[in-house]
């Protein structure tokens, strides 16, 4: 087992590798976009994620819920290898993205992140104009001369339901927007390069209820095109917007994963029932 530093050339993991053909997806429809297999994450000596195995279906919303410190954000950050940035972070097991383990030695985390967008808990627009924020991804990927940038910016801003509000002020700083608008700008920024997966880490926790409702509607729409994985501490939110819900409990353990309706109406695990009904966490 080696440390997963940012160096793409490092041999990243020891793998309990099985041929992909042997996998029998538990859910036939739709295809899984991501498959975690015994994925563990350690920060130094401390285990933050304990052997998680789950599938994330394509073009659906998968919600990850659980009490604070249960490793749900860690799981999210291990999908696009943002954990590589944490000193002393170590990953074992595998995480397949279209059948390819993202922790394979020949995977470049930068290339991976160009296909998996992320939206953070606190809105973090760059100190640039609205236009430049949205165009950022295409520009760093060097795709600015192959696309019609104006059209792409408009498409992304429409996609994040922000276009109407900022149409006339694309040159204004992204920092001049309200908190809710900033978060939708960050969503526009994430979807502009057309990723396949969108990771959202409690994207509404810093927002007021009105902004929160807008973003929730938006997530449902985004799922028509993108695979969405959303971490939330808000169970109502998970119930409202997700198709599938995974429940993590303390120690980074995945306790239950199933259709959202079933998890909330009839959980298989007693601890999950306790958590959902408020007896836990």
């Amino acid at each position, binding site marked *: 087992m080696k440390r997963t530093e940012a160096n*793409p050339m490092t041999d990243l993991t020891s793998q309990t590798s099985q041929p992909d053909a042997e996998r029998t997806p538990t859910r036939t429809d739709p295809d899984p976009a991501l498959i975690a297999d015994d994925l563990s994450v350690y920060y130094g000596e401390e285990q933050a994620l304990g052997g998680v195995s789950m599938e994330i279906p394509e073009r659906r919303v998968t919600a990850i819920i659980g009490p604070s410190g249960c490793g749900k954000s860690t799981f999210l950050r291990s999908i696009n290898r943002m954990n590589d940035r944490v000193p002393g972070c170590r990953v074992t097991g595998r995480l397949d993205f*279209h059948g*390819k383990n*993202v922790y394979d030695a020949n*995977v*470049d985390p*930068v*290339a991976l992140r160009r296909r998996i967008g992320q939206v953070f808990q606190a809105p973090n627009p760059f100190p640039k104009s609205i236009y430049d924020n949205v165009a950022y991804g295409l520009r760093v990927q*060097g795709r600015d001369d192959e696309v019609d940038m104006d059209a792409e910016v408009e498409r992304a801003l429409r996609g994040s339901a922000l276009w109407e509000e900022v149409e006339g002020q694309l040159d204004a700083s992204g920092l001049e927007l309200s908190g809710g608008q900033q978060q939708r700008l960050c969503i526009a920024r994430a979807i502009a390069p057309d990723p*396949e997966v969108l990771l959202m880490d409690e994207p509404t926790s810093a927002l007021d209820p009105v902004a929160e409702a807008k973003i929730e509607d938006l997530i449902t729409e985004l799922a028509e095109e993108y695979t969405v994985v959303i971490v939330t501490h808000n169970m109502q939110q998970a119930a409202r917007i997700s198709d599938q819900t995974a429940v993590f409990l303390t120690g980074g353990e995945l306790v239950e994963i199933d259709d959202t309706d079933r998890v909330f109406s009839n959980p298989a695990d007693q601890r999950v029932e306790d958590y959902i009904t408020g007896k836990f966490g």
Partner: protein
Amino acid sequence: MSGDSKAGFIGDEKLSADRRIDRWIRRVFFGCAALTIVTTVAIFLVLFDNAANYFFGARITELLAGATLDRQVSFTEFFTGTRWAPSHAYPSHGVLQIVWGTTVITVGAAFISIPVGTATALYLAEYADPSTRNRLKPILELLAGIPTIVYGFFAVSFVTPVFVDGIATYIVRPIGRAVHWIGTALPSTVGVAGSEVAIGATLIGAGEAMMAQYVGRYSMLAGIIVVGIMTIPMVSSISEDAMQAVPDDLRDGAYALGATKMDVSLGIVIPAAASGILASYVLAVSRAIGETMAVTLAAGFNANITFNPFEEIMTMTAYMVSMARGEAAVGTVEYQSLFAVGLVLFLLTLLMNVVNDLLKRRFQEAYR
């Protein structure tokens, strides 16, 4: 999303180009960081190398290549001689004379900067209301930002002719006259407890010495005053930071016992911030040792081991200035003496910096 690009997160040509740029930039920036180390190493090497030439007649590099040792200046002469005149027709290399100049000015300046700086820090940290603080602090920053050459001019055009000369003219010489007069009024010697004590003669001598104090263009006292003033902001700003870092609980505990502000300042804040305050003193001393232009223009160019504050005196830095201004040809002993003196200066300040660092770290361990 096209299906065939789905496994494309291994990286494409464009990304590997970006990666290459990234690696090159990293190397360049590492080079920048390494250059700071190279600077330090270069300072050491250059000073030792040229100082070796001064002592042994050959550079270290030349000695390693097998050059014969040709003792020019012996360590005994350098460290114990008491006359410093490398460019004199009869040269002499006793560095003590200019080390004395640096020492006496540094110590004298510390007698100004330490009390004034500490008092200023205490006032700013414990007494001043925010508006006074906001007015006083920029003034101290300005004082620290004025070029040393300006302080040199200030010494020549004000401190010496007005202040130091004033002390000599209106205090020292009149007192000397008084002492002399008393001496003449008393018997030359008095028998006390069986032995002769030369009271009158001593007083006359002291009085004459004081009456002879006239101030030229340069004086030790002017150097002490100017360097002292220049180092006040160093003491005050770092000491104030240290005092501000003392937790309020400590103060509250004392106030709750009925202590006055003065009790708290002297009994709680200063002891608690002691290592931080000491660090500021060490830094101020280090700056005073390395101070060049102001001290050169204030204290002068006459190497001289003296306690008389009205006499001209030369520091190590002043010697370096005068030597660099003269036409010391490369390779001469005078030229090499620059580096021997520079090495002594560098090692002294290095020692101060290490002590300062230790004190700072100790303070940070206590409060952060």
